[in-house]
């Protein structure tokens, strides 16, 4: 069996374990390329039946409009239950986007982590399936497939349950939960291979197009929303695309003319920088490890 099909089978096995052993699971859907694979895997795991859990999108309210449009269209097409949650209360005291570093800190804390923890609690989910991969980031390399979270949604990296073979310990007390990562063993290349092999639809922002952008630091940022512009900045039209999708103020684009999956993969293969390099959020003072300890996905 090829590596890709073995990874597929492993992910299906993991999702079925979740449905068999948890009372109220949810799948987090970020609308990005990893989520796209996750969604296809969920379809495969439960076919010919429907996906037996809802998909939840935690909307930071500064996502690309193209992502929201794609989300709603795709959800209607496949026909799963979609939950959208936002921390609208916190948004009222949001700092100006003129300072992206500060805005990102706010967004990560309140619009992502707090919003997620609030939503998980509100719906009483005891398991949340996510698309994180161990290869992505240094602290994720140590994450379990079934990763325990305490009453406060926190991760304790030094005190994780041992995880052997494919025997997952799914037991939690009331209020505790498990984050589940079926794509743990996938690499970025595997994600693209799978999208290509399965012909999975992805948000058009992954493909190159002439778009209005501004140069800030070493990244191209979208200029499609006037709130995002600093004083004196003049947008220019460039051929760009995104390697990874997040919020508009902090996710940089790369210059590219890739119009097909093959061309995207050619770029990914030649890439000399990791895919999160263009994300301001990952470069702040708080590391992914710290954010994960607080409950970040």
């Amino acid at each position, binding site marked *: 069996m090829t590596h890709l099909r073995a990874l597929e*089978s492993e992910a299906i096995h993991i999702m*079925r374990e979740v449905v068999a052993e948890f009372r109220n699971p949810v799948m987090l859907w970020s609308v990005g390329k990893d989520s796209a694979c996750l969604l296809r895997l969920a379809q495969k795991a439960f076919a010919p039946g429907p996906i037996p859990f809802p998909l939840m999108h935690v909307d930071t309210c500064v996502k690309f409009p193209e992502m929201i449009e794609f989300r709603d269209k795709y959800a209607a097409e496949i026909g799963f239950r979609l939950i959208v949650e936002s921390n609208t209360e916190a948004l009222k005291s949001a700092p100006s986007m003129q300072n992206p570093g500060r805005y990102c800190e706010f967004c990560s804390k309140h619009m992502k982590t707090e919003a997620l923890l609030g939503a998980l609690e509100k719906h009483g989910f005891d398991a949340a399936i996510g698309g994180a991969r161990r290869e992505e980031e240094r602290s994720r390399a140590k994450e379990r497939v079934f990763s325990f979270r305490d009453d406060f949604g926190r991760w304790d990296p030094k005190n994780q349950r041992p995880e052997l*073979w494919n025997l997952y310990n799914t037991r939690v007390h009331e209020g505790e939960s498990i984050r589940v990562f079926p794509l743990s063993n996938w690499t970025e290349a595997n994600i693209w291979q799978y999208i290509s092999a399965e012909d999975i639809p992805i948000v058009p922002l992954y493909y190159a197009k002439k778009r209005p952008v501004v140069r800030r630091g070493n990244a191209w940022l979208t200029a499609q929303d006037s709130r995002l512009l600093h004083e004196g900045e003049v947008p220019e039209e460039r051929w760009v695309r995104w390697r990874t999708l997040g919020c508009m103020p902090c996710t940089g684009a790369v210059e590219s003319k890739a119009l097909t999956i093959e061309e995207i993969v050619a770029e990914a293969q030649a*890439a000399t920088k990791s895919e999160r390099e263009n994300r301001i959020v990952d470069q702040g003072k708080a590391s992914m490890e710290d954010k994960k300890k607080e409950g970040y996905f």
Partner: protein
Amino acid sequence: MPNNPHEGVSVDAARELLAQRMELLRFTTAGSVDDGKSTLIGRLLVDTKAVFEDQLAHVQEVTERRGQTGFDLALITDGLRAEREQGITIDVAYRYFSTPKRSFIIADTPGHVQYTRNMVTGASTANAAIILIDARNGVAQQSRRHAFIASLLGIPHLIVAVNKMDLVDYAEERYDQIRREFRDWAAKLGQVDLRFIPISALNGDMVVTRGEKMPWYRGWTLLGLLEDLEIGTDRNLIDFRFPVQLVSRPQTEDLHDFRGYMGRIESGAIAVGEEIVVLPSGLRSKVKEIVTFDGNLDHAFTPQSVTITLEDDIDISRGDTIVRPHNVPRMESEFEAAVCWMSDEPMQPRKKYLIKHTTRTVRGFIKDLRYRIDIDTLHRDKESPTLELNEIGRCILKTQKPLYCDDYRENRATGSFIIIDELTNLTVGAGMIWRERHEAPGAAE
């Protein structure tokens, strides 16, 4: 387009990559602080281009901040902050790289803190283990311990990398001496595929490239061996075992009567029309369909995840196992196993634990600890009253309901289980089911 960083990579190459039908090899490494494990992994990742520029820049920066010169390969695998601060590895970390021939997953396990627990965890899913030996120090306790655990966990291939050859002048005599010593000791482990390679992880000799310092060595480079190691036979392709994960009853209009059994084929293969028997009921039927999202299959094999429907309506639920009538696993509620204890709280004989085995979770207890294995001397301690954290012993377990199990040596998936404390929900132990006639490796007295 200004300074295109992707210049020179063709779309044809990408098309090739997308179509690649690569195989996966999982291996584990373990070692103590100074034997160069992190350097070796860093070397493999850098030389196979699995590390990005910004990550390398970060390593460079940290190296300089520490006032060191050069480029500390070991920093590439640094994970958690406590590890960076203390210069140690705390937990199993998983690393990924690939070559045109294969994809690799490294289970990178620390050699000192909680060594057994982590080594056992890393070894549980590995096809091969790299055992590092410092050429200056020879075969250390640590290397023997790792080799023992690797063989206990049923890893078929042990690769002994004699590292730091640069510090012994790349001397063939030294390498031969270590090889002989290890081979003699490893005879105790029983049947394993044992390979030796002299390397210098620091300088890269015999890791990815051959280097020029050891013309006397004519074998594989480490990566060459990892790429070509024959692993097709590591899986059990004979005994069909299908533990049921979920019963699918969509009850939608078009699937009104559909009743499918979802699971992963843990070993062997099955075809439509074949006769099966369901455990524990013993009821027989025939495979009607093998259903997948991509259409029905005529046959399926391990490790595919599929949904099976049967000719007859019989009562089947999660935890049941579907097998062939003439090839059934053992059904036992009392069995012998090698158990590795993983909790701060020592094992309590006769305390009720939960045993998770395939898709079945049952109550059980340790009826008897026959002996504890001293993993340094391989001596059997029959007087030991209990197993403490990081200890391994041979136990007799009793469960409330039977398990449908095979010998771990013949079938990892149906021969393994984890032990969960019902009160704390922690995973406190891991076990490998072992019949009397199969002695633990090294246990021959």
